[in-house]
């Protein structure tokens, strides 16, 4: 049997390829990026899979839905917060249903290794009333893609596969199968299904709710949801938390265990477990979703449910084998060395020679005529400018939020209202708030850091850089006099401060593009 070394992300990608996927869609975001990159890499040669980064997750989702409409299989992948962006299309795709298989691979980031929050995408699956698979290892990442596509086509629902960082970015040997051929082009002819006018939407929504018993039946019968009854102490364990449990168990343990890796939650199996035990520990890497469902508002009679809500597991953060060990009441393992206290931190930083350093050095100086000036920032390498030594930006909330927030602050009378945003983030979520600000003639200053690539996630192609970027900005109707381009280099430092000061003095919307390629991109010959 052939075994390949794959990241969980890559196993998702290869599983999709071997399931006969015709298109992959997404926007880069840790920890999901490698799904797309893997597919892009391995299909470069034969080129029969559409693999081109989208401008944002919503666009990606809609493109994937269009591929599904046309009868072919599509995978759309993103990080958890990306699903917020795609939520409109996502929620409604559950109502339309699918034609060709549509699978959403979404990677959550418990512990916030590279994210602003640790929201749990299983809520979105539950919210949209669609099935969700939660693989516990790389082999399941691969195998579940086949099931997910099958189910999506068979039941006409989008299917979610939920990953977490720890599996997305962990490698193992994966046994692979033969590749299924792609679907033929076979566009849907069910016009009403896709046209969610209220009269059609009501019918479609009813279809969706009518599918629920079948989804539940499948979850009850799924081999991914295994119940092993033994002693009176029970554990209900979701997704890869299973690994942390078994890591700590001896083979002669007496726990009753229900492992869950396919949703909707198999209520019958949960019932069996609950009826059998006196106490129940719930382990899930994410929010206490299942824990709260099982406990309900008022708790279970005769069974103590333990987990994140009761303190056995920390309320926030990533799960790990040590936390699970303690929750199981097992003694800590002896170690060769005590943990080091007062160890110097080594946070990430902008690369040496990064253009952003020059942009922010100039901005800091240009702003020093103001008392404690605050700069709204966005998401990318440049967010690292929030840390010493630059400490140049003071917010990071959501993709594109810098411009919207600066506009809101300006409406309130705050001045100077300055936003800093990268070229790719601008195309993702910055265009619409800029259009809005320009049309309202808001007094704000936007610094677009055009480094010609998506730096933070590993040098993906930026959609709006160079001329394209300039044309988009000018297209919003901004006055040409207040659209400036600078080159952020040490040599231009004084001149750049001057440009910034001029625009800060202007009472209206201005955009300065600081254009210089990311040095990593230059090194890799990408720019």
């Amino acid at each position: 049997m052939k075994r390949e070394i794959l990241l969980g992300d890559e196993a998702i990608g290869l599983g999709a390829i071997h399931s006969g996927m015709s298109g992959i869609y997404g926007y880069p975001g840790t920890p999901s990026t490698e799904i797309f990159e893997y597919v892009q890499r391995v299909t470069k040669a034969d080129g029969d899979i559409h693999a081109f980064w989208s401008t944002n997750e919503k666009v990606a989702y809609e493109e994937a839905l269009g591929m599904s409409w046309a009868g072919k299989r599509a995978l759309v992948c993103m990080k958890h917060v990306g699903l917020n962006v795609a939520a409109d299309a996502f929620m409604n795709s559950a109502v339309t249903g699918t034609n060709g298989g549509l699978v959403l691979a979404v990677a959550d980031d418990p512990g916030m290794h590279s994210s602003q929050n640790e929201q749990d995408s299983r809520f979105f699956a539950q919210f949209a009333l669609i099935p969700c698979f939660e693989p516990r290892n790389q082999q399941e990442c691969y195998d579940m893609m086949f099931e997910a596509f099958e189910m999506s086509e068979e039941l006409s629902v989008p299917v979610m596969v939920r990953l977490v960082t720890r599996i997305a970015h962990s490698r193992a040997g994966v046994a692979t199968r033969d590749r299924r051929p792609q679907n033929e082009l076979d566009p849907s002819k069910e016009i009403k299904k896709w046209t969610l006018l209220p009269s059609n939407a009501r019918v479609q929504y009813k279809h969706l709710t009518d599918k629920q018993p079948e989804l539940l039946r499948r979850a009850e019968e799924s081999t991914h949801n295994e119940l092993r009854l033994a002693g009176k102490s029970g554990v209900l364990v979701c997704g890869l938390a299973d690994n942390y449990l078994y890591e700590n168990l001896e083979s002669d343990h007496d726990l009753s265990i229900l492992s869950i890796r396919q949703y909707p939650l198999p209520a019958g199996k949960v019932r069996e477990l609950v009826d059998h035990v006196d106490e129940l520990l719930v382990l899930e890497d994410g929010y206490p979703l299942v824990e709260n469902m099982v406990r309900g508002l008022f708790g279970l009679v005769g069974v103590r449910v333990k987990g994140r809500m009761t303190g056995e597991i920390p309320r926030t953060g990533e799960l790990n084998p040590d936390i699970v060990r303690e929750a199981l009441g097992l003694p800590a393992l002896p170690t060769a060395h005590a943990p080091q206290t007062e160890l110097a931190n080594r946070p990430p930083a902008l690369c040496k020679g990064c253009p952003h350093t020059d942009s922010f050095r100039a901005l800091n100086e240009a702003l020093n005529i103001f008392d404690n000036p605050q700069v709204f920032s966005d998401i990318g390498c440049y967010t690292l400018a929030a840390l010493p030594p630059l400490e140049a930006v003071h917010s990071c909330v959501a993709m594109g939020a810098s411009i919207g927030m600066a506009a809101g602050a300006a409406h309130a009378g705050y001045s100077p209202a300055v936003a800093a945003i990268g070229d790719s983030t601008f195309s993702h979520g910055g265009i619409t708030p800029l259009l809005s600000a320009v049309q309202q003639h808001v007094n704000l200053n936007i610094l677009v850091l055009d480094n010609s690539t998506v730096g933070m996630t590993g040098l993906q192609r930026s959609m709006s850089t160079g001329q394209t970027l300039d044309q988009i900005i000018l297209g919003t109707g901004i006055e040409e006099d207040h659209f400036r381009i600078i080159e952020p280099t040490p040599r231009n430092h004084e001149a750049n401060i001057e440009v910034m000061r001029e625009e800060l003095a202007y009472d209206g919307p201005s955009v300065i593009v600081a254009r210089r390629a990311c040095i990593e991109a230059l090194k890799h010959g990408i720019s």
Partner: protein
Amino acid sequence: MEKNIILAGVGGQGILSIAFVIDNAALDAGFHFKQAEVHGMAQRGGAVQSNLRYGDSEIYSDIIPTGSADLILSIEPLEVLRYWHFLRPGGWVVTSITPYVNIPDYPETDELLTELAAFDNIVMVDTAHIAKAAGNLRAQNMAAVGAASELLDFSEDQLLGFVEKLFARKGEKMVAVNQRAFKYGRAAGLFFRGLVDGGMPRLAAIKLSAKLAAETIDPEHAGAWAEALGADENKLETVLAEKEAVACDQAAAFA
């Protein structure tokens, strides 16, 4: 058999290349393995680690539990401190002594090395010295994995084969450089252990190793050096005072 390894370093130093070599050797040997790594923000010069586990029965957790690591393999001395509470009693540390200073509060190198040298099961190698001798300073990661290779469960040839596979894309020269770094690193690791087993204090052992011409280091001579210098600091100073790097077979000259 199960082996749990924490690979440590700074973003950009190439711990994923080390992981590649060991992962492939593990797969090739028919072992189960899992290897968790860090992507994203931390790769920009931050502290990075990878948890690598292999063995002949199923590996569950992608993360190594505290107290279960058999080996910490670090390309950077400060980074050892971040993880050594993961070591099980009797576990080993193999570390480079070359500091990567990109933070303002980096400790004094001497203090740091003294602290590391106080640990019983440690192998210290000067990866910068070795990589330079092998032909490219970037090959420190291969020097480090070479130094640790004795503690792994694969033959030297198996590992070298995957070093070749890893660098094949970059041409024969890069393959040769990296294989050399691996071999020098392996010799340096064994030599260091030989010195310590022969009674030399660890700090003296690493200072001596760093003074010897990396391409000449041969564990066979460790006994002779240990005997020649013993714990006598003056004798060590004489060696360190030499203008040029000293050939490894010259122990007798300093006895």
